[in-house]
């Protein structure tokens, strides 16, 4: 059935292929346009550099009026990412605008990796280390980067 959400997701996918943003990629699953797999490459000049972090995006029929549920599958160490991979990012919650598309979501998450917000922590250990012990923070992040290469 062609619904507003599905039509829009096809449009998002087409745009992602025709005009791919740097450092992110994403595509619907084989049998279900409502569930996408995505990869975010760790931004240069950050401890996440060289990481290939995998995510899932689950869309509801209310997309784009409601944001998708986006989760990291790769293990992450970041002040705004929960242990279960959930992401604490305002545009995925109270600042969601229907004008955001998949491309905008992925690039926003990519910039969250570069610029954590330690004042609104989802991982208090990561937030504390980010503020007080940057070396240890970077060490823990690097471990996630190396682990990201081994994920399926």
């Amino acid at each position: 059935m062609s619904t507003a959400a599905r039509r829009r997701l096809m449009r998002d996918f087409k745009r992602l292929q025709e005009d791919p943003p740097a450092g992110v990629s994403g595509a619907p699953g084989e049998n279900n346009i409502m569930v996408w797999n995505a990869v975010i490459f760790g931004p240069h000049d950050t401890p996440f550099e060289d990481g290939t972090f995998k995510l899932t995006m689950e869309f509801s029929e209310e997309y784009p009026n409601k944001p998708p549920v986006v989760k990291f599958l790769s293990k992450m160490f970041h002040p705004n990412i929960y242990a279960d991979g959930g992401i604490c990012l305002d545009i995925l919650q109270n600042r969601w605008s229907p004008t955001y598309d998949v491309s905008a979501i992925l690039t926003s998450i990519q910039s969250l990796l570069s610029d954590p917000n330690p004042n609104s922590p989802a991982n208090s250990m990561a937030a504390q280390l980010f503020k007080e012990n940057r070396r240890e923070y970077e060490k823990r992040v690097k471990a996630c980067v190396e682990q990201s290469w081994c994920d399926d």
Partner: protein
Amino acid sequence: MSSESPPPAASGDNQDELILAQKEAIAQDIASNASLVGNLEPVYSLEREFSHDAVFMTKIGNLKGRYAELRRTRPDGNCFFRAVAYRYFELLLHRPDEYERIKALLPRAKAQMIELGMPTFTLEDFYDNFMDHVDRVGQAHMDAQQLFETFNEPGQSDYLVVFLRLLTSMQLQRNAEFYQNFMEGDKTVAEFCATEVEPMYNESDHIHITALTEATGISLRVIYLDRGSQTEASLHDFPDQGESAATTPLVHLLYRPGHYDVIYPVKSTSESGPATSNATVTTTAELSS
């Protein structure tokens, strides 16, 4: 929403997700109890809800002389935009003058939205969809029944609502200096638009109404049915024409605290022709507090 059950509540858990899940449950409950846009009902149907309330009963009694019918909208935070959109499209069914006007206005509005930095790719999707419906209704490719069905199909209905939200956001941001006076605390107009205007399901206030009527030129009268002390429900016209009001606004809404429905004046039901300017309604434009 994720089909996984939420993790047990403990510190460090994903609280955002728990809050979202609870909001979702409330929204589902409302959705199962109210259509997005309801059928026409007589204004006196309001009396059933307020039979215990003398102030409301007096005001409803006085409304009955001026308003014939009511069309309820779902109280999902989008009611103001959905009510305006529905009533306006309904008017376009038999108002070629208004069709020509809005058809000329919308492309300019779109250019202003792009100028403001709204993402072109997604904006065009909402714009094209809205324009397509304006054309279908204005050129009689869609009748009242199809319009009703369209507005009760959630995806499509919300697509039309989004465009009005974006128009409102555009108007506020283009006149940010003026609207900054109405912001609470040190919130900027851009921040207000990002949190209170563009996201769906956020309720509308006076400022949304002002901006939307300015952006679209759609004149609007809101009848406030509240527990104020007067015996007449107070009303407010957008744009405010003061005492010199010469014409009756296009769209009439009934406001009850926290909610807007469409209301139809006695002399201009959905089937009437161009609005006549016999000002039978007083235009005190008194603002309820």
